[in-house]
């Protein structure tokens, strides 16, 4: 008998959390915010694991960062997104997913069209990169849950965070 894939447990647990939030919170925007926040917290911890596991040096430019993010998806979610659609300034790129393990068994009812089901992922990327002094913006431009052919995640470089700025003086 083939053992079930591990990710199913993660997928179903995440689904249960999203369902619970929809029940707890009055509007979908708040759910999006909470999911993003949870992802952010997870990203801050996962980056430690990632750096310990891969011992990669600091990324000097966004193309390297993109490769590292791709590698992280392979390690943690066992998917390999394609890196595409670089902006001419090389400060913005897309990650394209053919499949997304978090949305397996998931269908969005029409009244939840504003729900960013995978906001946890964008939060995670932001949290992880912030720990390596990179501020980015991260959002979904295409989503298979909303009927698109692929899921596309956009990452935009905002700025490098400087060390050693005392609180309140940035």
């Amino acid at each position, binding site marked *: *008998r083939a*053992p*079930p894939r*591990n*990710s*199913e*447990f*993660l997928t*179903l*647990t*995440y*689904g*249960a*959390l999203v*369902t*619970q*939030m929809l029940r*707890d919170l009055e509007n979908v925007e708040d759910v999006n915010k*909470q999911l993003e926040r*949870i992802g952010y*917290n*997870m990203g801050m*911890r*996962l980056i430690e*694991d990632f750096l310990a*596991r891969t011992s990669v040096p600091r990324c000097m430019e966004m193309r390297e960062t993109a490769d590292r993010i791709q590698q992280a998806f392979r*390690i*943690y*979610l*066992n998917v390999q997104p394609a890196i595409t659609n670089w902006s001419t300034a090389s400060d913005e790129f897309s990650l394209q997913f053919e499949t997304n393990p978090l949305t397996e*068994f998931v269908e969005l009812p029409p009244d939840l069209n504003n729900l960013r089901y995978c906001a946890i992922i964008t939060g995670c990327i932001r949290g992880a990169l912030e720990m390596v002094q990179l501020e980015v913006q991260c959002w979904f431009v295409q989503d298979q849950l909303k009927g698109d052919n692929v899921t596309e995640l956009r990452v935009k470089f905002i700025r490098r965070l400087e060390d050693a700025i005392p609180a309140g003086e940035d």
Partner: protein
Amino acid sequence: MTEEIVFDCLHAEIVNYCLDDSNKENDFSTLEYIGFTTGYRLIERLTRDIPRFKDELETIKFICTDFWTSIYKKQVDNLRTNNQGMYVVQDKAFRFLTRISSGPKQLQQAPKFVAFTCGLVRGALSNLGINSTVTAEVQTIPACRFHIEVSRN
């Protein structure tokens, strides 16, 4: 292995989400319920290719072996029953407690880390037609005993 760390982080965040609010501090019902719905769905995936269990004991044994292994990568260490619907499942190194240092202060926090799993077991059993109450008891971290009481009516 690597998916475990993702799950552990997610679990920690779920615990925070459910108990963050100070007036929810000791209310584990939401946390338990998230576990319940997860277990309820997961068991359908796990038992897809398995013949129907012949009795309650066999069902509980499945929870202690395959179910536990697929989630926590180990079997439980001990299963006892009074043959009247009470089961005690012992895990000597319960995963959500293995990263916590032992000590009276941490022990107070232990219920937070076992509530989800109580729900998980209750949900799984529920979808297999067994209504139960599942509670957990932690005396020394990281060991945990889960008490399953089958409701008969």
